[in-house]
């Protein structure tokens, strides 16, 4: 049977009964340049709107699970995650075991159940601690960060029962008791004399006017460590003078208000001079006079 060829009548379009049957799809060839511009503007607008919609949708899909899942994760952690790790870090000599004892974290305590403020307060009750930060690290870690006080002098005191007290003073005049100070550090510190200690509810009253002494000690450690190491006692007994007592010279008097580096330089020169000329043991050196330095020998 021969293949049927399309006749002109079969190619003819279906008769339109009403004008609404007329195809209204846009043929690009039929468009004027003005309408093409309009169509492109329309397409750009539609594409822009679609992109914006997609962006909003993607953002919503990305963040919604987090928003929904967030509180659930926290709840699960609070319900089921006991503290596994306590990470303690200190910038001083306090031992980790001692800090853990002070923290007093119950065994199998939940990370969310522990009172961070109470733990921080307990740590800061240790005199040697200047500040502490206690924080949770999900899912099961507690982090403790400690900054310790840096002592510049020590005080030798006794309790009423005759027991020796190891007290230290930092550069702000804060007096604290410490059994856990690094012995190497403690040994090098001079003793403080000429001050009166008074007890308060949590420790001792602050020592006023210690700032110049802190500066002198810091300067001496930096520029003349051999002189600093020879000092055994530093005294604040006179309000305008700083007095050091030690091996090289029994007593050296510094002017509290004058330049310490200059005074230390002059002292170093005198000590060297005396040592080289074998003038004997020095009883006192007074650096408070501007032009003259009275030196007394034993």
């Amino acid at each position, binding site marked *: 049977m021969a293949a049927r060829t399309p006749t002109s009548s079969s190619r003819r379009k279906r*008769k*339109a*009964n*009403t*004008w609404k*049957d*007329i195809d*209204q*799809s*846009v*043929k690009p060839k*039929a*468009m*004027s340049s*003005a*309408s093409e511009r*309009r*169509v492109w503007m*329309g397409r750009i607008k539609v594409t822009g709107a679609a992109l914006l919609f997609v962006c909003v949708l993607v953002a919503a899909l990305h963040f919604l699970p987090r928003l929904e899942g967030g509180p659930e994760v926290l709840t699960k952690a609070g319900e089921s995650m006991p503290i596994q790790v306590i990470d303690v870090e200190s910038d001083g000599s306090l031992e980790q075991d001692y800090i853990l004892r002070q923290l007093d974290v119950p065994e199998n305590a939940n990370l969310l159940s522990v009172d961070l403020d109470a733990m921080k307060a307990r740590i800061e009750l240790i005199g040697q601690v200047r500040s502490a930060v206690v924080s949770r690290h999900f899912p099961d870690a507690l982090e403790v960060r400690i900054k310790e006080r840096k002592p510049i002098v020590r005080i030798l005191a006794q309790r009423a029962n005759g027991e020796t007290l190891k007290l230290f003073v930092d550069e702000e005049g804060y007096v604290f008791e410490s059994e856990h100070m690094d012995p190497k550090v403690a040994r090098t510190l001079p003793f403080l004399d000429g001050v009166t200690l008074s007890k308060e509810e949590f420790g001792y009253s602050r020592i006023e006017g210690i700032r110049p002494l802190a500066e002198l000690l810091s300067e001496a450690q930096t520029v003349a460590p051999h002189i600093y190491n020879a000092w055994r006692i530093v005294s604040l007994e006179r309000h305008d003078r700083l007095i050091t007592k030690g091996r090289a010279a029994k007593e050296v008097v510094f002017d509290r208000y004058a330049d310490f580096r200059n005074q230390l330089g002059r002292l170093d020169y005198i000590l060297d001079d005396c040592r080289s000329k074998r003038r004997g043991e020095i009883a006192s050196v007074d650096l408070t006079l501007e032009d003259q330095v009275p030196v007394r020998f034993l």
Partner: protein
Amino acid sequence: MYKTKVIAGVDIGTSKVTVLLGEIHEGRKLNVIGLGQSSSKGLLKGEIVDYHLASDCVHAAILAAESQAGVSIDGVYLAQTGGHIEGFPSEASVNITDPDGRVQSEDVEQACSLAQGRELPENRTTIHHLRRPYRLDGRSVESPVGMEGERLEVGYWTMHGDSRKIGDAIHIINGFNLHVDDIVLAGLASSAAVATTDQKKSGALVIDIGRGTTDYALFLDGRCIKAGCLPIGGDHISNDLSIGLRMRLKQAESLKLRYGSAIVEHKDKTEKVWLNNDFEIGDRPIPLWSIEKIIELRVSEIFEVVRKKLGAQYLPERISSGVILSGGTSNLANIDQCAENVFGIQAHVGNNAAMASGELKDSQYSTALGLLHYGLQYQSEKSYAKHRQSSIFGRLKSLFQKV
């Protein structure tokens, strides 16, 4: 929530393309917000003869209207005219089957469907079905549902046109990436603007004479019972002058506008006017009587053709509001008197005062304004239908929203 819709009434005429933009609020209020016009190219007697030229001028007018209004068009109402548009009466009747003898809505639907179902010749497409009043056992009724009777008759005046020519006009609009929501016969559209509801109820004949075509619509009892389009217009008057008085078409057009009258006012045959009125070489005197006589003959002929087309439907005693003239050629002097002479009833030049103010009152905007009127009607019907379809809950919700 109601939406605001921007519709465009596009009148592609032989002399110019007019685009009016209307903003429809809440499906019932219309504000005209933009106007765009461009001189027509690629059109002859209301029909497209050069697709690209016609596209360019239509698109330019739409773009101008959009730019003026600063909005984008949502839908287009397109006026249709041209000599290809024809009409025929179609009637159908059904016997009432209800045991109580009352007319059911199914009876009405069946009668309408039978009357509209007449097959058209190839490449013809329906534009409008203009329904006449129903007749129930010979008496004229507006809505027969629920009334007693044995036989229901319905009659339509079906307007149809060449589907390819209508398709061309639609595709020009589609080429601007716009959708044609509805097509309205230009004569019907201009009737909506120049004839009031009362005039239509008391009977009116609206004749819109353009440059290339003449559209007419006859209204009786508030309904359009017959409408049509003739491929003759103002251009033919200029053409007659050009041939009769041996001058160029532009000169004839100018003469028509300067001295034209649809009746002979100046009986003195020696009275003359200058052709170009510049007294230069080529300028010559033309008898005024000749100009007026040629115009009178041609305008009378147009009216007579309209009267002939109306046939038995033209009943002067039922057209109390007379002839209402519209379109650019209606600005011709004494055209109303010429119409009165031909039709034997009163005639006047209409304007759009009922629908518009200011510049838009001019009859050249009648068709575009009428299209917007149709658009508003269509949107209102759609909005009402949507409202009726909504659930009780939806209606209560909208009620509370209004409160």
